[in-house]
């Protein structure tokens, strides 16, 4: 069954990447302008890859569906980016970042990839600073750091609560430079709708110009997909409205294996759902868990009174509060990894202690009162006031919090109309990130030759759970420091190929399929909007393929999605025409792919008869409700081969994960 060759280089882990780079093939500078590369997506991975390949001299075409590459959803990442710099002298090292990432991923990531990620992490910070990214600094002029979940060192670099924005604008500036120099052709408001294979190799894409609806053919010697994750399969998530799986899914349908689709990260600190017209969920950065304490009332009657509006959280006495993360996980407390924190919130709410008065009573408190007092006192002492009044302490403490998290507090207040300086934030887990994605080997190449996958779109580095501040690290590592080497290695055999023609039967067929599907939707004349189906799919996914899963629910989900998909094709109504800006048509094309992916996620979750990281099967937990892994039977990456729309035909291939440098163990944050 297994034909998966991960192409991990030989040798000690600390030398693998260096040795590998030394032996990769090169393309001479005079040959690079003869070679075309397509990059789909302009987030951290895509923008950095396109910029780097452009600098090297390749002919690059970059695509994004937004009106500017600067708007890709990496921009919304708040908290920070990890790097093993050990500037804080707290014992950090490449090995420790490697270890934390493997452990955080619940021993389901590939060792060699993760080590490389940790190895290049320091270069990312150097590179970004050189580009003029304004990271937060201390008074001495040195870079500041903070802590994130699942680790015991301070290795997270940040720029207030807008780290993703600053890093993306850094990559965008590098990309803009190449666009200005004519080395990258940027195609904004374009969406990739198919991957074109010629003789089994990835040779181009079909894209729709979203402004005039034209279906375009673009050929290349290699295609890099950096199209992000698939969290929007749940309809409600912290992803941007336009984030979608289509580019990756089209590649999957053309032969790229899709790995670990069931690994979804549910982020513990998001603003709870407020109503039926809600379009998305908003994250409150994990960095807040440095300062906020998470709790629910100890007594059910208090929780009920809060939900009924008869009690305020500030009226609950200290001894009547259950700081459940500190109680269950004293070693890491509020800074346990995301999957652990999310499940713990769900456990409390399911038990009836939720504090939010929405349909499901789902919400817990994130409280800054203790931190405001502690930091206020520190600040007063620093100012020489050794006997500060309570008011003074609170005033200074609020100021400290504002400086650290001001934009997040403002964002929270705008959405909820509540002031988090005065009353605890209400939070609840929401879909945030997808660890699964297209299967790639060590070179980030998918099972289709010439089709490379970077960033969240691939599956490689985070196992079953991603640690906070590691997505930005992976996106930039892939785009700046891996793709340029490995894509060149592939292209070294292409210098004699010549321009790939777009008038081939392969392009004809791909274009026809795209046009037929568009015509089908526009002439379908059904009775329900695309959103109607997307929301229904989201509910199935959240309830049955969400934070907790079981065999029966997963089987039901597969059936229900199949029925929903049939209904979608029969009854969806897509207004407007093909030759114009048509957002409903864009949505229909994306939801069509989500309706296939959702089933594969359920099938993947069904076969994985264990609990690990973000994948929690109710049947596999210990007496205390912790995940129970089954290393004997499931220590593999599940890579699915597409075999038609009937998901039951999809074929599972396994990549066995070998742990040579880290001893595999039960994950313990207690």
């Amino acid at each position, binding site marked *: 069954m297994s034909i998966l060759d991960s192409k991990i280089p030989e040798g000690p882990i600390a030398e693998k990447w260096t040795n590998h780079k030394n032996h990769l093939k090169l393309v001479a500078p005079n040959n690079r302008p003869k070679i075309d590369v397509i990059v789909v997506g302009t987030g951290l991975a895509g923008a950095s890859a396109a910029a780097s390949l452009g600098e090297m001299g390749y002919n690059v075409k970059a695509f994004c569906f937004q009106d500017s590459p600067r708007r890709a959803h990496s921009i919304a990442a708040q908290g920070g980016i990890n790097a093993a710099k050990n500037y804080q002298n707290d014992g950090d090292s490449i090995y420790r970042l490697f270890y934390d990432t493997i452990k955080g991923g619940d021993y389901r990531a590939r060792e060699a990839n993760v080590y490389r990620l940790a190895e290049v992490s320091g270069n990312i910070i150097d590179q970004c600073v050189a580009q003029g990214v304004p990271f937060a600094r201390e008074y001495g002029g040195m870079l500041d750091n903070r802590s994130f979940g699942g680790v015991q060192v301070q290795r997270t670099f940040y720029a207030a609560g807008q780290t993703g924005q600053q890093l993306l604008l850094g990559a965008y500036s590098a990309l803009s430079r190449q666009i*200005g120099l004519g080395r990258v052709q940027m195609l904004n408001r374009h969406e990739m709708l198919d991957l074109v294979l010629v003789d089994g190799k990835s040779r181009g894409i079909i894209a729709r110009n979203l402004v005039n609806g034209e279906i375009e053919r673009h050929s290349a010697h290699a295609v890099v997909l950096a199209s992000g994750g698939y969290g929007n399969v749940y309809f409600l998530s912290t992803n941007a409205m336009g984030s979608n799986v289509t580019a990756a899914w089209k590649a999957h349908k053309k032969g790229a294996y899709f790995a670990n689709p069931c690994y979804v990260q549910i982020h513990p600190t998001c603003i709870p759902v407020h109503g039926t017209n809600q379009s998305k969920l908003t994250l409150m950065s994990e960095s807040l868990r440095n300062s906020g304490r998470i709790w629910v009332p100890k007594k059910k009657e208090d929780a009920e009174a809060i939900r009924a509006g008869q009690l305020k959280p500030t009226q609950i006495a200290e001894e009547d509060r259950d700081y459940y993360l500190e109680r269950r996980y004293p070693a890491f407390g509020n800074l346990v990894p995301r999957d652990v924190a999310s499940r713990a919130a769900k456990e409390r709410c399911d038990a009836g202690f939720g504090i939010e008065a929405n349909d499901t009573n789902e919400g817990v408190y994130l409280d800054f009162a203790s931190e405001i007092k502690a930091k206020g006192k520190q600040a007063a002492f620093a100012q020489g006031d050794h006997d500060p009044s309570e008011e003074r302490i609170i005033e200074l403490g609020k100021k400290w919090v504002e400086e650290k998290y001001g934009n997040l507090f403002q964002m929270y207040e705008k959405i909820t109309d509540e002031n988090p300086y005065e009353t605890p934030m209400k939070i609840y887990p929401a879909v945030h990130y997808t660890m699964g994605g297209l299967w790639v080997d060590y070179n980030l190449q998918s099972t289709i030759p010439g089709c490379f996958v970077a960033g969240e779109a691939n599956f490689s580095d985070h196992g079953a759970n991603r640690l906070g501040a590691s997505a930005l690290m992976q996106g930039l590592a892939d785009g700046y420091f891996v793709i340029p080497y490995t894509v060149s290695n592939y292209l070294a055999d292409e210098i004699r190929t010549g321009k790939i023609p777009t008038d081939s039967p392969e392009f004809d067929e791909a274009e026809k399929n795209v046009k037929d599907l568009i015509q089908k939707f526009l002439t379908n004349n059904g009775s329900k909007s695309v959103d109607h189906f997307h929301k229904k799919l989201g509910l199935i996914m959240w309830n049955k393929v969400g934070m907790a899963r079981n065999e029966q629910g997963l089987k039901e989900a597969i059936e229900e999605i199949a029925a929903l998909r049939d209904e979608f094709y029969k009854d969806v109504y897509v207004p407007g025409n093909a030759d114009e800006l048509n957002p409903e048509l864009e949505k229909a094309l994306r939801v069509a792919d989500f309706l296939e992916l959702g089933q594969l996620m359920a099938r993947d979750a069904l076969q994985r008869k264990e609990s690990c990281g973000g994948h929690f099967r109710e049947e596999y937990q210990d007496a205390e409700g912790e995940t129970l892994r089954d290393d004997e039977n499931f220590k593999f990456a599940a890579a699915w081969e597409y075999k038609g729309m009937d998901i039951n035909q999809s074929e599972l291939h396994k990549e066995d994960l070998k742990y040579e440098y880290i001893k595999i163990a039960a994950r313990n944050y207690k």
Partner: protein
Amino acid sequence: MASKFINITLKIWRQKNSQAKGSMETYKLDHVSTDSSFLEMLDQLNEQLINERKEPIAFDHDCREGICGMCSLYINGRAHGPDTGITTCQLHMRMFKDGDTIYVEPWRSAAFPVIKDLVVDRSAFDRIQQAGGFVSVNTSGRTIDANSIPVPKTDADKAFEAAACIGCGACVATCKNGSAMLFVGAKVSQYALLPQGKVEAKNRVLNMVRQMDEEGFGNCTNTGACEIECPKGISLENIARMNREFLTAALSNED
């Protein structure tokens, strides 16, 4: 957070494409939750239009958390609507009352042509950035250690505040001259304040300002409306700094 529901009337700019003549159209929308964001209200209106077999309204949006800069609505005569320090996606319907009539228009500026309905073309901003909004460093990963040049915290903070610009274009839409100087000033300032940006500072400001003029943006007459409507509170100081940078560069340019 008890939800309330309101009924509203919307007057919205409809325009088939960039060549077509547009007009304001009137829509009634009932049962809008005050907890909805403005864009969720538009989703609700579009759902209603789709059910009536009418063409939904095209508008730009993506992250819906105030950071991507894609949403761009002129609401009741104000960029991003009647609140400060927010983007349209962060505007909530609790800012409106039952029975209100709300006017919704696209960004208006010669440099931002309408593509359809409320969607405009802001690629001029990208071209300004391409003219010089970068540090010319290749991605080798072999630059110097990030801490080898200390940067005073005040400079780093100011650079960050300038870099917080989301490129939405509210400044241009608000300005009576259609000036982009807050946007360009913010980018110029970010680099001018950091040691890494100093080397190319002169060419950068000259090139970015030249491109800004070529794109047809107007000039700054120090009214300050842009600063008030900027969702990220980008300060007018950045325009002053750009002017200083420009003057110095223009006077001492060796080319």
